[in-house]
Protein backbone atom coordinates (compact mmCIF):
# COMPACT_ATOMS: atom_id res chain seq x y z
CA UNK A 1 0.00 0.00 0.00
CA UNK A 2 1.46 3.30 -1.09
CA UNK A 3 -0.04 6.62 -0.04
CA UNK A 4 2.06 8.74 -2.39
CA UNK A 5 0.79 9.83 -5.79
CA UNK A 6 3.05 8.50 -8.52
CA UNK A 7 4.97 10.93 -10.76
CA UNK A 8 2.27 10.89 -13.44
CA UNK A 9 -0.57 11.78 -11.09
CA UNK A 10 1.62 14.32 -9.29
CA UNK A 11 2.35 16.06 -12.59
CA UNK A 12 -1.40 16.18 -13.27
CA UNK A 13 -1.93 17.73 -9.82
CA UNK A 14 0.74 20.33 -10.65
CA UNK A 15 -1.09 21.11 -13.89
CA UNK A 16 -4.48 21.52 -12.17
CA UNK A 17 -2.93 23.61 -9.39
CA UNK A 18 -1.18 25.87 -11.89
CA UNK A 19 -4.36 26.28 -13.94
CA UNK A 20 -6.48 26.94 -10.84
CA UNK A 21 -4.07 29.59 -9.53
CA UNK A 22 -3.72 31.41 -12.85
CA UNK A 23 -7.12 31.04 -14.45
CA UNK A 24 -9.69 30.32 -11.75
CA UNK A 25 -8.61 32.00 -8.52
CA UNK A 26 -8.49 35.56 -9.91
CA UNK A 27 -12.16 35.29 -10.91
CA UNK A 28 -13.58 33.47 -7.90
CA UNK A 29 -14.81 36.55 -6.00
CA UNK A 30 -16.46 38.01 -9.10
CA UNK A 31 -18.14 34.71 -10.03
CA UNK A 32 -19.64 34.54 -6.55
CA UNK A 33 -20.69 38.21 -6.44
CA UNK A 34 -22.20 38.40 -9.91
CA UNK A 35 -23.53 34.82 -10.16
CA UNK A 36 -22.21 34.76 -13.71
CA UNK A 37 -21.31 31.35 -15.13
CA UNK A 38 -17.52 31.44 -15.80
CA UNK A 39 -17.81 30.69 -19.51
CA UNK A 40 -14.24 31.79 -20.35
CA UNK A 41 -12.77 29.47 -17.75
CA UNK A 42 -14.96 26.60 -18.92
CA UNK A 43 -13.81 27.16 -22.51
CA UNK A 44 -10.18 26.99 -21.37
CA UNK A 45 -10.88 23.81 -19.42
CA UNK A 46 -12.57 22.38 -22.50
CA UNK A 47 -9.54 23.27 -24.64
CA UNK A 48 -7.13 21.55 -22.25
CA UNK A 49 -9.13 18.35 -21.86
CA UNK A 50 -10.39 18.92 -18.32
CA UNK A 51 -13.94 17.99 -19.37
CA UNK A 52 -13.08 14.45 -20.46
CA UNK A 53 -10.35 13.36 -18.06
CA UNK A 54 -11.63 9.87 -17.25
CA UNK A 55 -13.25 9.23 -20.65
CA UNK A 56 -11.31 6.80 -22.89
CA UNK A 57 -9.45 8.33 -25.83
CA UNK A 58 -11.57 6.41 -28.33
CA UNK A 59 -14.49 8.58 -27.19
CA UNK A 60 -12.65 11.87 -27.34
CA UNK A 61 -11.47 11.85 -23.74
CA UNK A 62 -8.07 12.08 -22.13
CA UNK A 63 -7.83 8.39 -21.22
CA UNK A 64 -6.86 9.08 -17.62
CA UNK A 65 -8.43 7.54 -14.52
CA UNK A 66 -10.92 8.55 -11.79
CA UNK A 67 -8.05 9.55 -9.47
CA UNK A 68 -6.80 12.12 -11.99
CA UNK A 69 -10.34 13.45 -12.39
CA UNK A 70 -10.76 13.71 -8.62
CA UNK A 71 -7.53 15.69 -8.23
CA UNK A 72 -8.77 18.08 -10.92
CA UNK A 73 -12.05 18.79 -9.11
CA UNK A 74 -10.11 19.07 -5.84
CA UNK A 75 -7.58 21.62 -7.12
CA UNK A 76 -10.24 23.73 -8.85
CA UNK A 77 -12.41 23.69 -5.71
CA UNK A 78 -9.53 24.85 -3.55
CA UNK A 79 -9.91 28.24 -5.20
CA UNK A 80 -13.50 28.18 -6.54
CA UNK A 81 -16.27 25.76 -5.56
CA UNK A 82 -18.36 26.84 -8.55
CA UNK A 83 -15.71 25.79 -11.05
CA UNK A 84 -15.27 22.46 -9.27
CA UNK A 85 -18.93 21.52 -9.52
CA UNK A 86 -19.19 22.55 -13.18
CA UNK A 87 -16.55 19.92 -14.03
CA UNK A 88 -18.03 17.39 -11.63
CA UNK A 89 -21.63 17.60 -12.89
CA UNK A 90 -20.53 17.50 -16.52
CA UNK A 91 -18.12 14.58 -16.06
CA UNK A 92 -19.73 12.37 -13.42
CA UNK A 93 -23.38 12.99 -14.13
CA UNK A 94 -23.46 13.31 -17.91
CA UNK A 95 -20.34 11.80 -19.54
CA UNK A 96 -20.16 8.84 -17.19
CA UNK A 97 -23.71 7.46 -17.63
CA UNK A 98 -23.39 7.73 -21.42
CA UNK A 99 -20.06 5.89 -21.23
CA UNK A 100 -21.52 3.23 -18.92
CA UNK A 101 -24.97 2.74 -20.42
CA UNK A 102 -24.98 4.34 -23.86
CA UNK A 103 -25.08 2.54 -27.20
CA UNK A 104 -22.11 2.95 -29.55
CA UNK A 105 -24.17 5.46 -31.60
CA UNK A 106 -25.01 7.48 -28.47
CA UNK A 107 -21.37 7.50 -27.44
CA UNK A 108 -20.27 8.74 -30.85
CA UNK A 109 -23.01 11.34 -31.07
CA UNK A 110 -22.99 12.67 -27.50
CA UNK A 111 -20.03 11.44 -25.49
CA UNK A 112 -17.36 12.37 -28.04
CA UNK A 113 -18.28 16.09 -28.20
CA UNK A 114 -18.84 16.20 -24.43
CA UNK A 115 -15.44 14.68 -23.69
CA UNK A 116 -13.67 16.77 -26.32
CA UNK A 117 -15.11 19.85 -24.67
CA UNK A 118 -17.28 20.94 -27.56
CA UNK A 119 -20.42 20.49 -25.47
CA UNK A 120 -21.36 20.80 -21.83
CA UNK A 121 -23.46 18.25 -19.94
CA UNK A 122 -26.00 18.19 -17.12
CA UNK A 123 -28.13 15.65 -15.24
CA UNK A 124 -31.77 16.04 -14.25
CA UNK A 125 -33.28 13.81 -11.58
CA UNK A 126 -34.52 16.12 -8.79
CA UNK A 127 -38.04 17.53 -8.93
CA UNK A 128 -39.89 19.92 -6.63
CA UNK A 129 -41.57 16.97 -4.90
CA UNK A 130 -38.74 14.48 -5.29
CA UNK A 131 -35.37 15.07 -3.68
CA UNK A 132 -34.12 12.31 -1.41
CA UNK A 133 -37.34 10.45 -2.22
CA UNK A 134 -36.52 10.11 -5.92
CA UNK A 135 -39.47 7.74 -6.31
CA UNK A 136 -41.71 10.77 -5.95
CA UNK A 137 -40.72 12.07 -9.39
CA UNK A 138 -43.60 13.05 -11.67
CA UNK A 139 -41.93 13.83 -15.01
CA UNK A 140 -43.32 11.37 -17.54
CA UNK A 141 -42.16 10.00 -20.87
CA UNK A 142 -44.59 8.27 -23.23
CA UNK A 143 -43.60 6.51 -26.42
CA UNK A 144 -45.49 7.87 -29.41
CA UNK A 145 -44.42 6.23 -32.64
CA UNK A 146 -40.68 6.85 -33.07
CA UNK A 147 -40.54 9.50 -30.36
CA UNK A 148 -40.66 9.80 -26.61
CA UNK A 149 -42.83 12.64 -25.38
CA UNK A 150 -41.63 14.25 -22.14
CA UNK A 151 -43.84 16.23 -19.76
CA UNK A 152 -42.94 17.62 -16.34
CA UNK A 153 -40.24 19.68 -14.69
CA UNK A 154 -36.91 19.23 -12.97
CA UNK A 155 -35.35 21.58 -10.44
CA UNK A 156 -31.97 22.56 -8.99
CA UNK A 157 -30.16 21.41 -12.14
CA UNK A 158 -26.44 22.23 -12.14
CA UNK A 159 -25.06 23.67 -15.41
CA UNK A 160 -28.81 24.20 -16.04
CA UNK A 161 -29.05 26.78 -18.78
CA UNK A 162 -25.41 26.47 -19.92
CA UNK A 163 -25.42 22.80 -20.87
CA UNK A 164 -26.01 21.36 -24.34
CA UNK A 165 -26.79 17.75 -23.41
CA UNK A 166 -28.98 16.62 -20.50
CA UNK A 167 -29.55 13.22 -18.96
CA UNK A 168 -33.21 13.28 -17.85
CA UNK A 169 -34.85 10.67 -15.65
CA UNK A 170 -38.60 10.21 -16.25
CA UNK A 171 -41.40 7.80 -15.37
CA UNK A 172 -42.16 5.44 -18.25
CA UNK A 173 -44.42 2.92 -16.52
CA UNK A 174 -46.53 2.58 -13.36
CA UNK A 175 -47.07 -0.96 -12.09
CA UNK A 176 -49.45 -2.06 -9.35
CA UNK A 177 -47.80 -4.51 -6.94
CA UNK A 178 -49.70 -7.49 -5.40
CA UNK A 179 -50.68 -5.33 -2.43
CA UNK A 180 -52.27 -2.79 -4.75
CA UNK A 181 -49.51 -0.14 -4.35
CA UNK A 182 -48.26 1.93 -7.27
CA UNK A 183 -44.67 1.25 -8.26
CA UNK A 184 -43.08 3.65 -10.74
CA UNK A 185 -40.60 2.53 -13.33
CA UNK A 186 -38.17 5.12 -14.60
CA UNK A 187 -36.10 5.41 -17.74
CA UNK A 188 -33.14 7.63 -18.60
CA UNK A 189 -33.08 9.87 -21.68
CA UNK A 190 -30.60 12.05 -23.51
CA UNK A 191 -32.16 15.42 -24.30
CA UNK A 192 -30.51 18.13 -26.37
CA UNK A 193 -30.84 21.83 -25.68
CA UNK A 194 -33.17 23.65 -28.08
CA UNK A 195 -35.43 20.62 -28.49
CA UNK A 196 -38.95 22.08 -28.98
CA UNK A 197 -40.93 21.81 -25.76
CA UNK A 198 -37.81 22.01 -23.57
CA UNK A 199 -37.44 25.36 -21.81
CA UNK A 200 -35.88 26.84 -18.69
CA UNK A 201 -37.77 28.08 -15.66
CA UNK A 202 -36.48 29.85 -12.58
CA UNK A 203 -32.81 30.51 -12.01
CA UNK A 204 -32.09 29.73 -8.39
CA UNK A 205 -30.51 32.46 -6.26
CA UNK A 206 -28.23 30.37 -4.12
CA UNK A 207 -26.28 30.63 -0.88
CA UNK A 208 -23.08 29.25 -2.43
CA UNK A 209 -21.60 27.92 -5.68
CA UNK A 210 -23.34 30.96 -7.11
CA UNK A 211 -21.86 30.85 -10.60
CA UNK A 212 -22.95 27.30 -11.37
CA UNK A 213 -26.15 28.11 -13.30
CA UNK A 214 -28.78 26.25 -11.29
CA UNK A 215 -32.05 26.18 -13.21
CA UNK A 216 -35.45 24.62 -13.42
CA UNK A 217 -35.98 22.58 -16.60
CA UNK A 218 -39.48 22.44 -18.09
CA UNK A 219 -40.72 19.81 -20.55
CA UNK A 220 -44.01 20.42 -22.34
CA UNK A 221 -44.76 17.84 -25.01
CA UNK A 222 -41.03 17.70 -25.64
CA UNK A 223 -40.47 15.09 -28.35
CA UNK A 224 -37.14 13.33 -28.54
CA UNK A 225 -36.07 10.47 -30.84
CA UNK A 226 -36.82 6.96 -29.63
CA UNK A 227 -33.09 6.23 -29.89
CA UNK A 228 -32.35 8.75 -27.12
CA UNK A 229 -33.43 6.28 -24.46
CA UNK A 230 -30.29 5.68 -22.37
CA UNK A 231 -29.93 2.08 -21.21
CA UNK A 232 -32.89 -0.28 -21.07
CA UNK A 233 -36.44 0.96 -20.69
CA UNK A 234 -37.49 0.80 -17.03
CA UNK A 235 -33.87 0.81 -15.79
CA UNK A 236 -33.68 4.56 -15.18
CA UNK A 237 -33.63 4.31 -11.41
CA UNK A 238 -30.61 1.99 -11.14
CA UNK A 239 -28.89 4.07 -13.85
CA UNK A 240 -29.52 7.24 -11.82
CA UNK A 241 -28.32 5.63 -8.60
CA UNK A 242 -25.19 4.24 -10.23
CA UNK A 243 -24.53 7.66 -11.77
CA UNK A 244 -24.88 9.29 -8.37
CA UNK A 245 -22.37 6.81 -6.89
CA UNK A 246 -19.82 8.28 -9.29
CA UNK A 247 -21.12 11.81 -8.79
CA UNK A 248 -20.61 11.54 -5.06
CA UNK A 249 -16.90 10.96 -5.58
CA UNK A 250 -16.77 14.19 -7.59
CA UNK A 251 -18.64 16.11 -4.89
CA UNK A 252 -16.47 14.55 -2.21
CA UNK A 253 -13.47 15.89 -4.15
CA UNK A 254 -15.13 19.31 -4.35
CA UNK A 255 -15.73 19.29 -0.58
CA UNK A 256 -12.15 18.19 0.04
CA UNK A 257 -10.84 21.00 -2.16
CA UNK A 258 -12.97 23.62 -0.41
CA UNK A 259 -11.72 22.46 3.00
CA UNK A 260 -8.10 22.46 1.84
CA UNK A 261 -8.44 25.89 0.25
CA UNK A 262 -9.88 27.39 3.42
CA UNK A 263 -7.25 25.74 5.60
CA UNK A 264 -4.35 26.92 3.42
CA UNK A 265 -5.56 30.50 3.61
CA UNK A 266 -6.16 30.27 7.33
CA UNK A 267 -2.66 28.95 8.01
CA UNK A 268 -1.22 31.93 6.12
CA UNK A 269 -3.53 34.37 7.86
CA UNK A 270 -2.82 33.13 11.38
CA UNK A 271 0.90 33.64 10.79
CA UNK A 272 0.35 37.26 9.80
CA UNK A 273 -2.45 38.33 12.12
CA UNK A 274 -1.10 39.78 15.35
CA UNK A 275 -3.07 40.04 18.59
CA UNK A 276 -1.68 40.63 22.07
CA UNK A 277 1.75 41.29 20.57
CA UNK A 278 2.22 38.03 18.70
CA UNK A 279 0.78 36.19 15.74
CA UNK A 280 -2.39 34.25 16.45
CA UNK A 281 -0.54 31.20 15.07
CA UNK A 282 1.53 31.37 18.25
CA UNK A 283 -1.58 30.95 20.41
CA UNK A 284 -2.18 27.38 21.42
CA UNK A 285 -5.89 27.53 20.59
CA UNK A 286 -5.01 28.33 16.98
CA UNK A 287 -2.37 25.62 16.86
CA UNK A 288 -4.74 22.94 18.16
CA UNK A 289 -7.53 24.03 15.80
CA UNK A 290 -5.17 23.90 12.82
CA UNK A 291 -3.89 20.48 13.89
CA UNK A 292 -7.42 19.11 14.17
CA UNK A 293 -8.46 20.56 10.82
CA UNK A 294 -5.37 19.33 8.98
CA UNK A 295 -5.93 15.84 10.37
CA UNK A 296 -9.58 15.83 9.34
CA UNK A 297 -8.69 17.08 5.87
CA UNK A 298 -6.07 14.37 5.45
CA UNK A 299 -8.55 11.70 6.50
CA UNK A 300 -11.07 13.08 4.00
CA UNK A 301 -8.42 13.03 1.29
CA UNK A 302 -7.62 9.37 1.92
CA UNK A 303 -11.30 8.44 1.74
CA UNK A 304 -11.81 10.44 -1.46
CA UNK A 305 -8.76 8.95 -3.18
CA UNK A 306 -9.76 5.49 -1.99
CA UNK A 307 -13.22 5.95 -3.52
CA UNK A 308 -11.62 7.08 -6.79
CA UNK A 309 -9.44 3.98 -6.83
CA UNK A 310 -12.51 1.84 -6.06
CA UNK A 311 -14.28 3.36 -9.08
CA UNK A 312 -11.27 2.44 -11.21
CA UNK A 313 -11.07 -1.14 -10.02
CA UNK A 314 -14.46 -2.26 -8.70
CA UNK A 315 -17.83 -2.83 -10.30
CA UNK A 316 -19.66 -1.47 -7.28
CA UNK A 317 -18.19 1.48 -5.39
CA UNK A 318 -21.31 2.99 -3.82
CA UNK A 319 -20.15 2.26 -0.26
CA UNK A 320 -16.75 3.92 -0.73
CA UNK A 321 -18.37 6.87 -2.53
CA UNK A 322 -20.91 7.37 0.27
CA UNK A 323 -18.23 7.27 2.98
CA UNK A 324 -16.01 9.69 1.05
CA UNK A 325 -18.83 12.14 0.41
CA UNK A 326 -20.23 12.00 3.93
CA UNK A 327 -16.87 12.60 5.58
CA UNK A 328 -15.49 15.11 3.07
CA UNK A 329 -18.70 17.19 3.08
CA UNK A 330 -18.93 17.32 6.85
CA UNK A 331 -15.22 18.09 7.03
CA UNK A 332 -15.67 20.93 4.54
CA UNK A 333 -18.49 22.43 6.58
CA UNK A 334 -16.70 22.10 9.90
CA UNK A 335 -13.32 23.27 8.64
CA UNK A 336 -14.64 26.29 6.75
CA UNK A 337 -16.75 27.33 9.76
CA UNK A 338 -13.71 27.14 12.03
CA UNK A 339 -11.59 28.98 9.47
CA UNK A 340 -14.05 31.87 9.47
CA UNK A 341 -13.83 31.89 13.27
CA UNK A 342 -10.02 32.01 13.21
CA UNK A 343 -10.19 34.92 10.77
CA UNK A 344 -12.46 36.68 13.26
CA UNK A 345 -14.19 39.79 11.89
CA UNK A 346 -12.23 39.61 8.65
CA UNK A 347 -13.56 36.11 8.09
CA UNK A 348 -17.02 37.60 7.79
CA UNK A 349 -15.89 39.93 5.03
CA UNK A 350 -16.23 38.74 1.43
CA UNK A 351 -12.82 39.94 0.33
CA UNK A 352 -11.15 37.35 2.57
CA UNK A 353 -12.95 34.51 0.75
CA UNK A 354 -13.23 32.02 3.62
CA UNK A 355 -16.87 33.04 4.13
CA UNK A 356 -17.51 32.11 0.48
CA UNK A 357 -15.87 28.77 1.08
CA UNK A 358 -18.14 28.25 4.08
CA UNK A 359 -21.20 29.05 1.95
CA UNK A 360 -19.91 26.81 -0.86
CA UNK A 361 -19.21 23.98 1.59
CA UNK A 362 -22.81 23.74 2.79
CA UNK A 363 -24.15 22.41 -0.50
CA UNK A 364 -21.77 19.44 -0.43
CA UNK A 365 -23.75 18.11 2.55
CA UNK A 366 -26.95 18.37 0.52
CA UNK A 367 -26.67 17.67 -3.20
CA UNK A 368 -26.10 14.31 -4.87
CA UNK A 369 -27.47 12.70 -1.74
CA UNK A 370 -27.62 14.46 1.61
CA UNK A 371 -25.38 13.35 4.44
CA UNK A 372 -28.41 11.49 5.78
CA UNK A 373 -28.71 9.57 2.51
CA UNK A 374 -25.01 8.69 2.69
CA UNK A 375 -25.57 7.31 6.20
CA UNK A 376 -28.46 5.24 4.85
CA UNK A 377 -26.26 3.86 2.08
CA UNK A 378 -23.40 3.07 4.46
CA UNK A 379 -25.54 1.51 7.19
CA UNK A 380 -27.58 -0.37 4.58
CA UNK A 381 -24.40 -2.05 3.37
CA UNK A 382 -23.26 -2.78 6.94
CA UNK A 383 -26.54 -4.41 7.94
CA UNK A 384 -27.27 -6.23 4.71
Amino acid sequence: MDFQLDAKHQMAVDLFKDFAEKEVKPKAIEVDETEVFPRDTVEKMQKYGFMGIAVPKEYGGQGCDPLTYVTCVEELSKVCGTTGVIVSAHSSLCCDPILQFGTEEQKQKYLVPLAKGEKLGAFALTEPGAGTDAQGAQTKAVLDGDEWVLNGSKCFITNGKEADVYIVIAVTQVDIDPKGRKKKKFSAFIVEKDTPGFTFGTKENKMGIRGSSTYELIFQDCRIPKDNLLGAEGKGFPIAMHTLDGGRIGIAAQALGIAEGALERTIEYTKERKQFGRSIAQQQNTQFQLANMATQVEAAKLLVYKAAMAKATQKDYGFEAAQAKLFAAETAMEVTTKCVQLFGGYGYIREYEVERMMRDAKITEIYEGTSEVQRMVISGALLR
Partner: protein
Amino acid sequence: MKIVVCVKQVPDTKGGVKFKPDGTLDRAAMLTIMNPDDKSGLEAALRLKDQYGAEVTVLTMGLPKADAVLREAMAMGADRGILVTDRVLGGADTWATSSTLAAAIKNLDYDLIITGRQAIDGDTAQVGPQISEHLDIPVISYAADIKIDGDYVIVRRQYDDRYHVLKVKMPCLITALQELNEPRYMTPGGIFDAFDKETTVWGRADLKELADENMGLAGSPTQIAKASDKVRKGAGEKVTPDSPQEGVEYIINKLSEKHVI
Protein backbone atom coordinates in the same frame (compact mmCIF):
# COMPACT_ATOMS: atom_id res chain seq x y z
CA MET B 1 10.74 20.04 -40.49
CA LYS B 2 12.75 18.84 -37.50
CA ILE B 3 13.09 21.14 -34.51
CA VAL B 4 15.34 20.57 -31.51
CA VAL B 5 14.44 22.53 -28.39
CA CYS B 6 17.00 22.80 -25.59
CA VAL B 7 15.49 23.12 -22.13
CA LYS B 8 16.95 23.36 -18.65
CA GLN B 9 15.54 22.28 -15.35
CA VAL B 10 16.09 25.21 -12.98
CA PRO B 11 15.33 25.86 -9.30
CA ASP B 12 11.85 27.20 -8.68
CA THR B 13 12.59 30.46 -6.93
CA LYS B 14 9.20 30.25 -5.22
CA GLY B 15 10.51 27.26 -3.23
CA GLY B 16 13.58 29.07 -1.85
CA VAL B 17 17.25 28.71 -2.80
CA LYS B 18 19.40 26.14 -1.00
CA PHE B 19 23.20 25.90 -0.94
CA LYS B 20 25.63 23.09 -0.23
CA PRO B 21 28.31 23.75 2.42
CA ASP B 22 30.82 24.47 -0.38
CA GLY B 23 28.71 27.36 -1.65
CA THR B 24 27.38 25.72 -4.82
CA LEU B 25 23.64 25.32 -5.42
CA ASP B 26 22.09 22.24 -3.85
CA ARG B 27 19.98 21.39 -6.92
CA ALA B 28 18.78 18.07 -5.55
CA ALA B 29 17.16 19.80 -2.54
CA MET B 30 15.26 22.48 -4.48
CA LEU B 31 11.91 22.45 -6.18
CA THR B 32 12.40 22.69 -9.90
CA ILE B 33 10.64 24.05 -12.97
CA MET B 34 11.29 24.24 -16.69
CA ASN B 35 13.25 27.44 -17.31
CA PRO B 36 10.68 30.07 -18.41
CA ASP B 37 12.54 31.29 -21.52
CA ASP B 38 13.01 27.65 -22.59
CA LYS B 39 9.32 26.99 -22.10
CA SER B 40 8.54 29.86 -24.44
CA GLY B 41 11.02 28.37 -26.91
CA LEU B 42 9.20 25.06 -26.66
CA GLU B 43 5.86 26.80 -27.15
CA ALA B 44 7.24 28.50 -30.26
CA ALA B 45 8.32 25.10 -31.61
CA LEU B 46 4.90 23.59 -30.83
CA ARG B 47 3.17 26.46 -32.63
CA LEU B 48 5.38 25.86 -35.67
CA LYS B 49 4.43 22.19 -35.40
CA ASP B 50 0.72 23.10 -35.26
CA GLN B 51 1.02 25.50 -38.18
CA TYR B 52 3.51 23.86 -40.53
CA GLY B 53 3.92 20.33 -39.19
CA ALA B 54 7.18 19.44 -37.46
CA GLU B 55 8.84 16.84 -35.29
CA VAL B 56 9.84 18.42 -32.01
CA THR B 57 12.68 16.86 -30.00
CA VAL B 58 13.41 18.22 -26.56
CA LEU B 59 16.98 18.00 -25.29
CA THR B 60 18.22 18.60 -21.80
CA MET B 61 21.41 18.06 -19.84
CA GLY B 62 21.24 17.55 -16.11
CA LEU B 63 20.70 15.19 -13.21
CA PRO B 64 18.57 12.09 -13.85
CA LYS B 65 15.62 13.96 -12.25
CA ALA B 66 15.73 16.40 -15.18
CA ASP B 67 13.68 13.69 -16.90
CA ALA B 68 10.71 15.55 -15.38
CA VAL B 69 11.11 18.54 -17.73
CA LEU B 70 11.17 16.17 -20.71
CA ARG B 71 7.92 14.57 -19.54
CA GLU B 72 6.42 18.02 -19.09
CA ALA B 73 7.53 19.02 -22.60
CA MET B 74 6.05 15.83 -24.06
CA ALA B 75 2.81 16.42 -22.11
CA MET B 76 2.65 19.82 -23.84
CA GLY B 77 3.08 18.15 -27.24
CA ALA B 78 6.77 17.48 -27.95
CA ASP B 79 7.40 14.23 -29.80
CA ARG B 80 10.45 12.91 -27.96
CA GLY B 81 12.80 13.74 -25.14
CA ILE B 82 16.54 13.20 -24.77
CA LEU B 83 18.33 13.48 -21.44
CA VAL B 84 22.09 13.85 -21.46
CA THR B 85 23.33 12.79 -18.05
CA ASP B 86 26.63 11.50 -16.77
CA ARG B 87 28.69 12.14 -13.66
CA VAL B 88 31.66 13.22 -15.83
CA LEU B 89 29.52 16.01 -17.31
CA GLY B 90 28.73 17.56 -13.91
CA GLY B 91 29.93 21.01 -12.88
CA ALA B 92 29.89 22.30 -16.45
CA ASP B 93 30.05 26.03 -17.15
CA THR B 94 28.49 27.52 -20.30
CA TRP B 95 31.40 26.42 -22.50
CA ALA B 96 31.28 22.79 -21.36
CA THR B 97 27.47 22.80 -21.45
CA SER B 98 27.26 24.18 -24.97
CA SER B 99 30.00 21.78 -26.14
CA THR B 100 28.08 18.86 -24.67
CA LEU B 101 24.69 19.92 -26.04
CA ALA B 102 26.22 20.58 -29.48
CA ALA B 103 27.75 17.10 -29.45
CA ALA B 104 24.32 15.67 -28.63
CA ILE B 105 22.68 17.69 -31.41
CA LYS B 106 25.27 16.33 -33.86
CA ASN B 107 23.66 12.91 -33.28
CA LEU B 108 20.35 14.33 -34.57
CA ASP B 109 18.82 15.61 -37.82
CA TYR B 110 17.61 19.16 -37.44
CA ASP B 111 16.42 22.19 -39.40
CA LEU B 112 15.92 24.52 -36.48
CA ILE B 113 17.26 24.68 -32.94
CA ILE B 114 15.45 26.78 -30.36
CA THR B 115 16.84 27.60 -26.94
CA GLY B 116 15.66 30.01 -24.30
CA ARG B 117 17.50 33.31 -24.11
CA GLN B 118 18.88 32.55 -20.67
CA ALA B 119 18.24 30.44 -17.60
CA ILE B 120 16.96 32.03 -14.42
CA ASP B 121 19.68 30.35 -12.31
CA GLY B 122 22.80 31.45 -14.22
CA ASP B 123 21.43 34.34 -16.30
CA THR B 124 24.37 34.16 -18.74
CA ALA B 125 22.50 33.96 -22.09
CA GLN B 126 25.61 32.28 -23.48
CA VAL B 127 24.69 28.64 -24.06
CA GLY B 128 22.36 29.16 -27.05
CA PRO B 129 24.76 31.31 -29.12
CA GLN B 130 27.69 29.06 -28.16
CA ILE B 131 25.86 25.98 -29.47
CA SER B 132 25.41 27.74 -32.81
CA GLU B 133 29.18 28.43 -32.91
CA HIS B 134 30.00 24.79 -32.20
CA LEU B 135 27.62 23.72 -34.99
CA ASP B 136 28.73 26.53 -37.29
CA ILE B 137 25.21 27.73 -38.01
CA PRO B 138 23.66 31.21 -37.76
CA VAL B 139 22.11 32.39 -34.49
CA ILE B 140 19.25 34.84 -34.03
CA SER B 141 18.87 35.85 -30.42
CA TYR B 142 15.97 37.52 -28.54
CA ALA B 143 13.27 36.23 -30.89
CA ALA B 144 9.88 37.82 -30.31
CA ASP B 145 8.18 36.32 -33.38
CA ILE B 146 9.03 33.37 -35.62
CA LYS B 147 7.62 32.51 -39.05
CA ILE B 148 8.67 29.93 -41.62
CA ASP B 149 9.04 30.73 -45.32
CA GLY B 150 10.24 27.70 -47.25
CA ASP B 151 13.81 26.96 -46.18
CA TYR B 152 13.99 30.24 -44.28
CA VAL B 153 12.91 31.52 -40.91
CA ILE B 154 11.74 35.09 -40.53
CA VAL B 155 12.40 36.27 -37.00
CA ARG B 156 11.70 39.52 -35.23
CA ARG B 157 14.70 40.18 -32.99
CA GLN B 158 13.66 42.35 -30.08
CA TYR B 159 15.77 45.10 -28.53
CA ASP B 160 14.80 47.52 -25.79
CA ASP B 161 13.96 50.34 -28.18
CA ARG B 162 13.63 48.71 -31.61
CA TYR B 163 13.50 45.42 -33.43
CA HIS B 164 15.12 43.82 -36.45
CA VAL B 165 13.40 41.48 -38.86
CA LEU B 166 15.82 38.84 -40.09
CA LYS B 167 15.40 36.24 -42.78
CA VAL B 168 17.80 33.37 -42.24
CA LYS B 169 18.31 30.12 -44.07
CA MET B 170 17.88 27.00 -42.01
CA PRO B 171 19.54 25.24 -40.29
CA CYS B 172 19.92 27.92 -37.70
CA LEU B 173 19.49 28.54 -33.99
CA ILE B 174 17.04 30.91 -32.35
CA THR B 175 17.05 32.04 -28.72
CA ALA B 176 13.59 32.80 -27.41
CA LEU B 177 12.35 35.42 -24.98
CA GLN B 178 9.74 34.65 -22.36
CA GLU B 179 7.72 37.47 -23.94
CA LEU B 180 7.54 35.50 -27.20
CA ASN B 181 4.33 33.78 -26.19
CA GLU B 182 2.19 32.41 -23.38
CA PRO B 183 3.10 28.71 -23.17
CA ARG B 184 0.21 26.29 -23.34
CA TYR B 185 -0.77 24.09 -20.42
CA MET B 186 -0.16 20.39 -20.51
CA THR B 187 -3.23 18.20 -20.97
CA PRO B 188 -4.09 15.39 -18.54
CA GLY B 189 -4.01 12.85 -21.39
CA GLY B 190 -0.73 14.33 -22.63
CA ILE B 191 0.76 13.68 -19.19
CA PHE B 192 -0.37 10.06 -19.24
CA ASP B 193 1.04 9.62 -22.76
CA ALA B 194 4.32 11.23 -21.77
CA PHE B 195 4.76 8.69 -18.99
CA ASP B 196 3.90 5.81 -21.31
CA LYS B 197 6.67 6.84 -23.69
CA GLU B 198 10.35 6.16 -23.21
CA THR B 199 12.79 9.05 -23.05
CA THR B 200 16.25 8.61 -24.55
CA VAL B 201 19.15 8.79 -22.11
CA TRP B 202 22.62 9.54 -23.41
CA GLY B 203 25.82 9.35 -21.37
CA ARG B 204 29.36 10.40 -22.18
CA ALA B 205 29.87 7.35 -24.43
CA ASP B 206 26.99 8.43 -26.70
CA LEU B 207 28.60 11.80 -27.44
CA LYS B 208 31.25 10.88 -30.00
CA GLU B 209 31.90 14.46 -31.06
CA LEU B 210 32.62 15.67 -27.53
CA ALA B 211 36.28 16.09 -26.58
CA ASP B 212 37.24 15.26 -22.99
CA GLU B 213 38.85 18.66 -22.48
CA ASN B 214 35.55 20.41 -23.26
CA MET B 215 33.31 18.71 -20.73
CA GLY B 216 32.40 18.73 -17.07
CA LEU B 217 34.05 20.73 -14.33
CA ALA B 218 37.56 20.05 -15.67
CA GLY B 219 36.57 21.32 -19.12
CA SER B 220 35.06 24.52 -17.76
CA PRO B 221 37.15 27.69 -18.13
CA THR B 222 34.86 29.41 -15.62
CA GLN B 223 35.01 28.25 -12.03
CA ILE B 224 32.62 29.59 -9.43
CA ALA B 225 34.67 30.92 -6.53
CA LYS B 226 31.71 31.55 -4.25
CA ALA B 227 27.95 31.79 -4.44
CA SER B 228 25.78 33.20 -1.72
CA ASP B 229 22.18 33.95 -0.95
CA LYS B 230 21.07 37.53 -1.24
CA VAL B 231 21.91 39.41 1.97
CA ARG B 232 18.73 40.78 3.41
CA LYS B 233 18.76 44.53 3.95
CA GLY B 234 17.38 46.14 7.08
CA ALA B 235 13.92 47.60 7.14
CA GLY B 236 15.26 51.10 6.43
CA GLU B 237 13.97 54.33 7.83
CA LYS B 238 10.90 56.19 6.67
CA VAL B 239 10.88 59.95 7.03
CA THR B 240 8.24 62.40 5.90
CA PRO B 241 9.81 65.84 5.54
CA ASP B 242 7.59 68.90 5.44
CA SER B 243 9.33 70.42 2.43
CA PRO B 244 11.71 69.35 -0.37
CA GLN B 245 14.34 71.59 1.22
CA GLU B 246 14.07 69.72 4.52
CA GLY B 247 14.25 66.40 2.64
CA VAL B 248 17.45 67.37 0.87
CA GLU B 249 19.01 68.55 4.13
CA TYR B 250 18.10 65.29 5.81
CA ILE B 251 19.66 63.20 3.04
CA ILE B 252 22.85 65.32 2.98
CA ASN B 253 23.19 64.97 6.74
CA LYS B 254 22.77 61.22 6.51
CA LEU B 255 25.33 60.92 3.72
CA SER B 256 27.80 63.02 5.71
CA GLU B 257 27.17 60.89 8.78
CA LYS B 258 28.10 57.78 6.81
CA HIS B 259 31.12 59.59 5.31
CA VAL B 260 29.77 59.12 1.80
CA ILE B 261 30.24 62.81 1.13
